[in-house]
């Protein structure tokens, strides 16, 4: 059971995960028929368009030849029409094949990311920020789609939109390649220069927009404080300052965009092409119709001129997104599953022996030592940042100690089989996650084949049965977006019901919800008491009653265990501790 990846989907496809570019490439080629189709279609599409420019020139030559036949002209007109239809159809084919590729890349990469996340250990997930993961699975994956359609599609089109006319120009008269070649060089130079100037300004503009937005949002969210302190003028000045800076960047960007030298290059090239063409005409090397064809083919170069900037940006963004996704997929968590370790029922004795833990070089816990007997309830108290949650995460090895040892039943946790260890330790988090399913399904989530009786029994113990049956559909009530919204206290009791069903040997309960009314409070107290009575429980709580009646209390302060003992012991020797209880006289 224990392997590097805890989950593997059936029919998995291996992508190349070495670099972002290769990864994108392997995704694009997964269904080769589409990219091939795109290429073929794009070539034909540009061929038809460019050929029609030549056809127009031929028509001109025809009508300037004395004695021409209408039928011949009709033939040319029909050819033009036919090629236009061909251009349209191949355009559709190009667009559609790219669209398929783009949508599939989005779907497949999201699938790949998700399967990979599922396969990662609890250690990995315990350390991740959910917002980060979400952003990558939605925005970054979307960016890949956009990179293909329209990004890469336009790039392919532009590239061929340069190649095809060049080829046909060469067919007219190879010396005509002079002007287009020089133009392309100048185009590249001016485009790079344009990009270089525009980029910093665009970035500054985007950032300034973000700042302006954030400042505005802050002022509005805190409007009561703003008004209460008569700071309206101050906030106004702040906002207007931001808005003015934005205007400055906007105007600067507008100036750069207005100047767009590539367009000037095109005008120069256009005139030069005309000159070259007419000179050749004068020398008899070209017919006027061919000059017209030439000008038409030069005109085809107008499109790549204008579209390039936009498309390169998209590709850049796409690669950046791919990088972020790959980073997540390729993260390995170094924790060893220890397949050969101890696997047996836990009695519930937990010992911390001079435990220290540092995260990213910052010390979080220092020299923490205590002993817990099976079945005891340990209350952990301390201010935020004192290390309470981290301490509990060392027990089920979300993190590993950097000094000292954590022992379960006398054995170092690193010598336990990780799977066995974790399956017997449960954590009830503050922010309980419920699925958009029925209450019964949520309660029974961990236990396949749980009977309705068992579910109701657990709910009774957790003091949840009453409120569940108060809903119209009782246990079949849907929770979440499509169903009812539960209060914090209700969610907590559902989590406790779940824990009754899974019956862990060690329970870590993060109880930091607040009490609204005494009736609910009594129920929550009862539920917590019941769930902690049959197992070793680590309780991070603010509730004085839970603290006072715990078997042992650990007082943490900035990562150190400054005191521990029973309530009576602490009352006697700790002034800080007594102060807490003195207040509710």
């Amino acid at each position, binding site marked *: 059971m224990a392997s590097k990846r805890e989950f593997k989907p059936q029919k998995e496809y291996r992508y190349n995960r070495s670099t972002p570019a290769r990864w994108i490439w392997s995704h694009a080629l997964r269904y080769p028929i589409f990219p091939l189709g795109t290429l073929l279609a794009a070539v034909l599409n540009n061929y038809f368009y460019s050929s029609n420019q030549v056809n127009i020139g031929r028509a001109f030559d025809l009508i300037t030849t004395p004695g021409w036949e209408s039928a011949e002209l009709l033939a040319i007109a029909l050819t033009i029409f036919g090629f236009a239809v061909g251009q349209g159809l191949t355009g559709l084919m190009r667009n559609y094949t790219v669209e398929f590729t783009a949508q599939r890349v989005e779907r497949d990469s999201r699938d790949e990311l998700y399967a990979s996340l599922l396969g990662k250990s609890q250690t990995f997930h315990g350390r991740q920020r959910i917002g980060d993961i979400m952003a990558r699975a939605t925005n970054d994956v979307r960016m890949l789609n956009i990179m293909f359609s329209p990004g890469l599609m336009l790039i392919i089109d532009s590239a061929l939109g340069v190649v095809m006319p060049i080829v046909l120009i060469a067919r007219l008269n190879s010396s005509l390649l002079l002007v287009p070649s020089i133009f392309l060089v100048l185009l590249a130079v001016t485009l790079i220069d344009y990009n270089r100037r525009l980029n910093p300004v665009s970035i500054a503009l985007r950032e300034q927009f973000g700042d302006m937005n954030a400042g505005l949002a802050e002022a*509005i969210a805190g409007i009561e404080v703003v008004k209460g302190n008569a700071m309206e003028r101050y906030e106004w000045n702040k906002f207007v300052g931001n808005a003015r800076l934005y205007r400055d960047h906007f105007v600067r960007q507008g100036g750069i965009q207005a100047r767009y030298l590539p367009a000037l290059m095109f005008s120069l090239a256009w005139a030069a092409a005309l000159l070259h063409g007419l000179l050749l005409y004068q020398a008899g090397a070209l017919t006027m119709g061919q000059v017209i064809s030439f000008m038409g083919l030069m005109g085809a170069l107008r499109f790549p001129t204008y579209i390039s900037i936009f498309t390169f940006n998209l590709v850049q963004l796409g690669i950046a997104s791919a990088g972020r996704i790959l980073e997540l997929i390729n993260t390995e968590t170094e924790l060893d599953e220890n397949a050969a370790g101890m696997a047996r029922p836990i009695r519930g004795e937990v010992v911390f022996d001079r435990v220290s833990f540092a995260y990213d070089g910052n010390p979080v816990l220092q020299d923490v030592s205590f002993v817990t007997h099976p079945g005891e309830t340990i209350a952990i108290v301390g201010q935020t940042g004192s290390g309470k949650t981290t301490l509990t995460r060392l027990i089920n090895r979300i993190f590993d100690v950097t000094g000292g040892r954590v022992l379960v039943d006398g054995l170092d946790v690193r010598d336990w089989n990780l799977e066995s260890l974790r399956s017997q330790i449960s954590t009830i988090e503050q922010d309980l996650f419920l699925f958009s399913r029925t209450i019964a399904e949520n309660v029974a989530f961990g236990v396949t084949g749980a009977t309705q009786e068992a579910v109701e029994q657990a709910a009774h113990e957790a003091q949840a049965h009453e409120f569940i049956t108060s809903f119209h559909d009782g246990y079949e009530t849907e929770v979440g977006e499509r169903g009812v919204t539960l209060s914090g206290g209700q969610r907590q009791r559902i989590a406790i019901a779940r824990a009754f069903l899974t019956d862990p040997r060690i329970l870590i309960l993060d109880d930091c919800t607040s009490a609204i009314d005494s009736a609910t409070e009594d129920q929550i107290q009862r539920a917590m008491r019941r769930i902690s009575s049959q197992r070793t429980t680590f309780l991070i709580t603010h509730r004085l009653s839970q603290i006072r009646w715990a078997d042992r209390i650990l007082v943490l302060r900035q990562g150190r265990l400054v005191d521990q003992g029973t309530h009576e012991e602490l009352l006697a020797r700790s002034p800080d501790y007594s102060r807490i209880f003195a207040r509710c006289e």
Partner: protein
Amino acid sequence: MGFILDGLDTEAYDRNYTDRELVARIISYFKPHKQQMGVVGLMIAMNSLAGTGGPILISKGIDWMSSDPSLTAILLLTGGVLLLGVAGWGFNYAQQWLSARVVGNVVLKVREDVFTSVINNDLSFYDEHPSGKIVSRVTSDTQDFAETVTLTVNLLSQVLLVAILSVVLFGINPWLTLLLLAMTPLAVALALSFRRIARTVTQHARRVTAKINAQIQESISGIVVAKSFRQEHAIYDTFQANNRQAYQVGLRRGLTLNTIFPVMGMAAGLGIASLVFAGGLATRGGLSPGDWYLFMQAVGFYWWPLLSIASFWSQFQDGLSAAERAFALIDAQPKVVQAAAEAVDRLDGRIELRDLEFTYTGSEVVLPGFSLDIRPRETLALVGHTGAGKSSIARLIGRFYEFQDGDLLIDGRDIRRLDLQQYRHQIGVVPQEPFLFSGTVRDNIRYGRPDASDEAVHEAAMRMSKGEWLEGLSAGLDTDVGERGSNLSMGQRQLVALARVLLKDPAIFILDEATASVDPFTETQIQEGLETIMRDRTAIIIAHRLSTVRHADRIIVMKNGRIIEEGTHDQLMAHSGHYAELYNTYFRHQSLDYVERFQEIVAA
């Protein structure tokens, strides 16, 4: 050329202002820049001329060349084309740059106006307008409406171009021109129907995608839970089903939107083909080859401007909607209006409420005639169920809302006649969820008195629970609080808010106690801090803490906007009335007695 697909996403918006009003108002914002706009107009016209001039020159040139291909002629012709091309680029440069300047300034002005109105409004305004919407109106809608003008200006240039060209072509050969113009309805019809289809598809896709995304997000949030219960396969199946659905919807939308341009191209091709033939026949009847070529070029010139003209109207309407949203905010009148601006010095802190009538939105009456006298330096606790009117009283005293009838006197003076800014300097308000601005703890404490010295800030911080709480901050007073104070715990944020009040040293303190859970140590510090604050001023507290009601000089028990009991805690408990019931519901579990009797309670 994606203009045809622009703005398909915008939501419908019920309009109250007429188009004419909006347009007039938008124009008024551009009036200060009318000279620049004039130049922009001129540049557009010149650009159009240069733009049409080029093809015309070439066509004439072709005819010349046929009869007289001399070097001079060639040079003249190419020189002319070069000149027109460069001139066109130049006119476009000037026009775009000036437009950017004008638009930038107009948007700035509109933003200033909107924000001025927003910041000066009272809290009833913020109840009506969710903050997210306000932000998007100030930043996005203002931008959108300025771009309506750019859109219109571009449209005019397109129309001008097409008009000039049509006139010239008509002069050359009316029949061909008519043939060319006959294709116009086809182009417009195509554009419009595509837009309609695209709009429907986009809006449908947006709704479905939002739903699917929510489901996918749920699948992601649920990974940890699924793993801890070994339910990976189940959740994977759910995810895959949603992912596939998202693919279908996205594909359909993408394919639909990507159909338009190739089809347009085919239609253009049909146009060219017919012109080639008809034009060719026309040359037999006197049309010169050069002019024939002009008609060929014209199709390209016509086609795309026609498309942008076709999509103009709905984009224009969207722009007007954006303008309306911005103007709606500018026009929102504050309800709290002072009748005078009498100076306010250090107050004693005596507050008298006389028969106050108050309702938030005009529907439910919150205070049906409320009276209360508060003595200077008194600590008053307000208790009652939700909706009893406690918060309303606190907010009315803070002058955040306007009451409909009755009197509110501060130190015997009508609150409506006081200078509002000066009055606010005399009060300290801490809402239920204390709000911190990004910056340091020091900056936040200083927020109410920006001119306070560092020593004063330090001293205020130290007066709260002997400054012990500062040790819990990673860098003391210089700690960066993060966005909205996210680097600090709830309890620490409350302490900062209280220190802010201490520094300000107001005559009247108004607190809406938080109900969120805070660790016992920080809670002690908060309670000690509160005691310090309550000592030297009038304190009005919407109480949720047992220690608050115990220490209050007087407790006011409210129900349905009336006082039903008042007295000290002991007096009220002895009375065994509504207060005793409230106590049992909200305060009992905070008492030591409850803590000690815990074993009995949980055994039940």
